[in-house]
C-alpha cells in the first residue's frame, strides 16, 4: 500500500549558481545580489518550465537565518515578486537550520495531502557571503543549542562538532582508513562539481585533489581533526521545485512523464538539548532513511541515485552509512573503492554535493531534491548517471544541526 493517500509528483526545478569563493565571478568586496534576487531567480527558473504558473496555489520558502545574514525576515513577502499571479496567494517560510530546504519540501507535500492545494512552489534560499566566515559561524551556530552549547563551543562551532565526529571515527576505526575516505569524498565532490556549471567548485582546476584533501588540520586557527577542504562552502544561492497532485500536474500543463513521483518521506526531529548518542553515527539520519525506505517499500539497493548532506567530508562518510548503502564503519572504504562515484555502485552527490556545488544552507534540501528529480528525468546533462530500469528510485536526505533535524525523501521515475 502506498504511503500517501494520493499521488504526489515533483517537476520542473531550478538551481541558481552557488556563489562564493571558488567562482570566478565572486569577489568578496564587490556588491552581490540580495536574497530576493535568489528567490526570484530560482522561482522563475522553475515556473518558466511549465505552461500555467497562474495555477500554482501556494508557496513555501525554506530559509535558515536571513534575519542575521541579511537582516531580513518575513520572507514569504518575496513570493509575489516571482510572478504577478502570486499576489495574495498563501506563502509560509519554514526553518529547520540547514534542513530548512528539506522542511520546505515536506510542508509542500503535507499541504497537497491535506487537499488544501494542488500545486506548490517550494523555494529554498540563503545568503552567507554578507559577513566574514568567523561571524557567519556565529549565525550558523544557531543550529545548535545556543544557551547550552555556544559558550563552551569552538569559534567555528559546526566545523568543530564534525571535527569531533571525525576524531571519534579515527579512534574507533583507524585514522588512515577514515582519512582516506574523507579525502576521496573531497575528490569526488570536486570532480562532480567540475561537470556542473552552477557549482561553486566548477572552476576548480587543482590537479592534486587527493593531496589537497589530505592537508593537515591546523587547530590553532581552525579545527583539530578536519581541514578547510573537509568543509562545505560558504554560499549564496537558491533552488526551487514544484510539487503537484495528479490534478495539479494537469492544471500546470505538465505531462506525467516530465514529472517524478514522490513515493515517501520521513521527517525526524531529535532533541536539540541532548548530545548525539554516538559520534560515529548519524543516528537521526539513519532513522529517517529507514522510515523512508519502509514507507516507500524499497531497500537501499533499489536506488539508482542518492544525494546526502555532506556539510563536511566526515558527514558524507557517515551519511552513506546512515542511508544504508554502506555498513557501519564501512563508509570510508566504500568511498575509497569508488562505489559512490558517478559510475559506481550507488552514484552519490553526482552534482557535487555541499562540498562541490556549495551549501546555501536554506536552499540545500531543495537543491538536493531538484538534482535527484533531474537525474530521474534524465535531465542532469553532464552530471547524468545511469538510472537502472529495475532501480527507478532516487533518495535525498537533508540534515539540520548536528544530526538533529532530518528530512529524507524517495522519488520514483514515472512509468
Amino acid at each position: 500500500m502506498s504511503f500517501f493517500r494520493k499521488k504526489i509528483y515533483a517537476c520542473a526545478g531550478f538551481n541558481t549558481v552557488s556563489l562564493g569563493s571558488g567562482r570566478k565571478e565572486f569577489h568578496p568586496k564587490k556588491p552581490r545580489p540580495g536574497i530576493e534576487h535568489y528567490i526570484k531567480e530560482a522561482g522563475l527558473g522553475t515556473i518558466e518550465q511549465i505552461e500555467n504558473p497562474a495555477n500554482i496555489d501556494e508557496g513555501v520558502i525554506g530559509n535558515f537565518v536571513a534575519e542575521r545574514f541579511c537582516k531580513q525576515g518575513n520572507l514569504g513577502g518575496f513570493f509575489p515578486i516571482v510572478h504577478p499571479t502570486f499576489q495574495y496567494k498563501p506563502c509560509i517560510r519554514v526553518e529547520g537550520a540547514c534542513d530548512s530546504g528539506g522542511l520546505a519540501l515536506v510542508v509542500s507535500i503535507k499541504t497537497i495531502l491535506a487537499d488544501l492545494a494542488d500545486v506548490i512552489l517550494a523555494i529554498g534560499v540563503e545568503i552567507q557571503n554578507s559577513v566574514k566566515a568567523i561571524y557567519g559561524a556565529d549565525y550558523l551556530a544557531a543550529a545548535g543549542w545556543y544557551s547550552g552549547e555556544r559558550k563552551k563551543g569552538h569559534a567555528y562551532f559546526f566545523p568543530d562538532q564534525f571535527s569531533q565526529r571525525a576524531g571519534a571515527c579515527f579512534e574507533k576505526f583507524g585514522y588512515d582508513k577514515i582519512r582516506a575516505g574523507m579525502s576521496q569524498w573531497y575528490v569526488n565532490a570536486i570532480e562532480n562539481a567540475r561537470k556542473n556549471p552552477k557549482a561553486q567548485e566548477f572552476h576548480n582546476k587543482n590537479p592534486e585533489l587527493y593531496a589537497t584533501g589530505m592537508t593537515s588540520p591546523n587547530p590553532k586557527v581552525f579545527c583539530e581533526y578536519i581541514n578547510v577542504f573537509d568543509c562545505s562552502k560558504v554560499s549564496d544561492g537558491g533552488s526551487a521545485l514544484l510539487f503537484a497532485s495528479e490534478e495539479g500536474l494537469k492544471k500546470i500543463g505538465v505531462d506525467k512523464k516530465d514529472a517524478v513521483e514522490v513515493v515517501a518521506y520521513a521527517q525526524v526531529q531529535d532533541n536539540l538539548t541532548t548530545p548525539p548518542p554516538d559520534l560515529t553515527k548519524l543516528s537521526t539520519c539513519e532513522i529517517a532513511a529507514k522510515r523512508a525506505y519502509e514507507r516507500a517499500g524499497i531497500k537501499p539497493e533499489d536506488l539508482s541515485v542518492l544525494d546526502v548532506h555532506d556539510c563536511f567530508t566526515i558527514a558524507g562518510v557517515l551519511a552513506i552509512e546512515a542511508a544504508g548503502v554502506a555498513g557501519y564503519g564501512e563508509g570510508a572504504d566504500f568511498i575509497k573503492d569508488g562505489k559512490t562515484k558517478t559510475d559506481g555502485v550507488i552514484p552519490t552527490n553526482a552534482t557535487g554535493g555541499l562540498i562541490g556545488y556549495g551549501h546555501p544552507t536554506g536552499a540545500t534540501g531543495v537543491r538536493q531534491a531538484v538534482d535527484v528529480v533531474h537525474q530521474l528525468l534524465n535531465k542532469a546533462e553532464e552530471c547524468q548517471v545511469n538510472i537502472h530500469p529495475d532501480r527507478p528510485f532516487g533518495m535525498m536526505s537533508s540534515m539540520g544541526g548536528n544530526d538533529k533535524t532530518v528530512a529524507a525523501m524517495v522519488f520514483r521515475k514515472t512509468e
Partner: protein
Amino acid sequence: MTLDDRLENVAIIGAAGKMGSGIGVLIAQEMARLKLKPENKDKIYRLNLIDISESALDGLRGYMKAQLVKRTEKSTVLLRRIYENRKDLVENADIINAFVDASSAVLNFTTDLNTVKNAHLIFEAIVENEKIKIKVYKKLKKLCSNDTLFLTNTSSIPISYLDEKAGLDGRLIGYHFYNPPVVQRLVEVITAKTTIEELENIGQEIGKRLRKKLVPANDISGFIGNGHFIRDGLYAISEVERLKGKYRYPGAVYIMNRITQDFLVRPMGIFQLIDYVGIDVFQCILKVMRTYLGDKTLKSKLVDKMVKQNALGGQYADGSQKDGFLKYERNRPVGIYNFRKQEYFIIEDKWKKKTDAKIGPLPDGFAPWKSLLMNPKKEDALSKHFDNLKKMDTLGAGLAINFLKKTKEIGEKLVSDGIANSSDDVNAVLTNGFYWLYGPINNYI
C-alpha cells in the same frame, strides 16, 4: 628586566609609517594578551605611537582600528579559550570586540617625543637615512633611562655604526620586519658585535611571541633581504640596458618584468617589486650599501633618472601600488614609463601579443605562482617547469635561465661574503619575506 616588564611601556618612533604602524598592531595585541592574564589585571600598559605630524597620526588611528579587528578575527579560536570565564562574551563577535577594545586601550597617539621617557623598549622605524636616525637616537638616549633597549627596523644601515654614533653602548639590535609587518612572517635579526646579550635574548623572545620567523643576518650593509633584492634588481636593469636596442625601452622593461613573474614563477615581476618598494627607497638603499660596502657598482643611472623625474612608485594608504617603472590599474601593470617623453607608454593588446610572441611560450604545464602557492606538490611542479624551460630555445627561456643563474650567484655570494650564515638562511628570507616558492640557491639550475 623581563620582556613582560618591558612590554608595560613601549614606544614606536615613526609609528605612522608603513613599518611602524604594522609593528604597532603586533605590539598592541601582545600587550592586550598580557593584560588579560589575571596576575596583570591591575597593571597599566601603554604603547606610545610617536610620529611627527597630527595628520599622519589621524591616518594611523584608522589603520590601527581596521588592522586590530582583522587580526583579532583571525585569532578567535585562541581568544575563545582566553575569554572562557567571561560569561557575557558568547559569540565570536562579542569576543572580537572585547579584544579589539583591550588592544585599543593601550594606545597613546602622540607627536611628543618626550613620551618615550618611561618606555623600556623602543622600536624605531623612521626614514632609512643614517643622519636622521643618528640624530633621533641621540635625542632618545637623553630622554630614556639607561637600560632602555632599542630595535631598529633599518634594512641596510650597519647596526654597529648607528650604535657607535649614537652612543647606545650595545643597546641596539637590527630587527628588520618585512612589509607589511602584520602579514609577513619574516624578521631579519641583525645582532651586531656591539649588541648586548640581554637584547639578543629579548629579540628572540619577541619573535616567538609575535610568531615571526627570525632569520639571523650579519651586520653588513643590506643584510640578506636587500643584499639579494637590490642586486637582483640591478641585474634586471642591466638586462634592460642590453635589450633596449633590439626591443626598445618599454619592450625591454615589459620583457624582464614578465620573465621574472611568469617564467621564474614569482609573485610579481621585478619591476613591479621595485615599484612596490618605492624607486626612491631603492635608490636610498643603493646609496647606503654603496657607502658601507665601498662597492661602486651598486648604482643605477636609470634609477637616478626615475627619481629625478619624480616617477617614484610606492603605495597608497590602502596598499595599492603607485605608478613607477610601470603604471597600474587595480595593481596590474597597464603601462611602462618612458623617461624620454616623461609619460607612460600604454600596453595595448596588439603590442602585448607581439611582444609576447617574441618572448615565446611558457613551458608546457605552466602554472602561475598563485595556483602553485597552495599546491601540496609544488616542488615537483617547479622541477618540471624548470626542466621544460631548459629544453626550450626561445628568448624568454634563455633570459629566464640566465636570471635563475644570476639570482643563485647573488645568493651564494651572500653566504661566501659572510652576510648570511647559510644557504638555508638566504632561501628562508626570499621565501618568507618575498613569498618566493623556492629559494635562489636551488638545484633547478
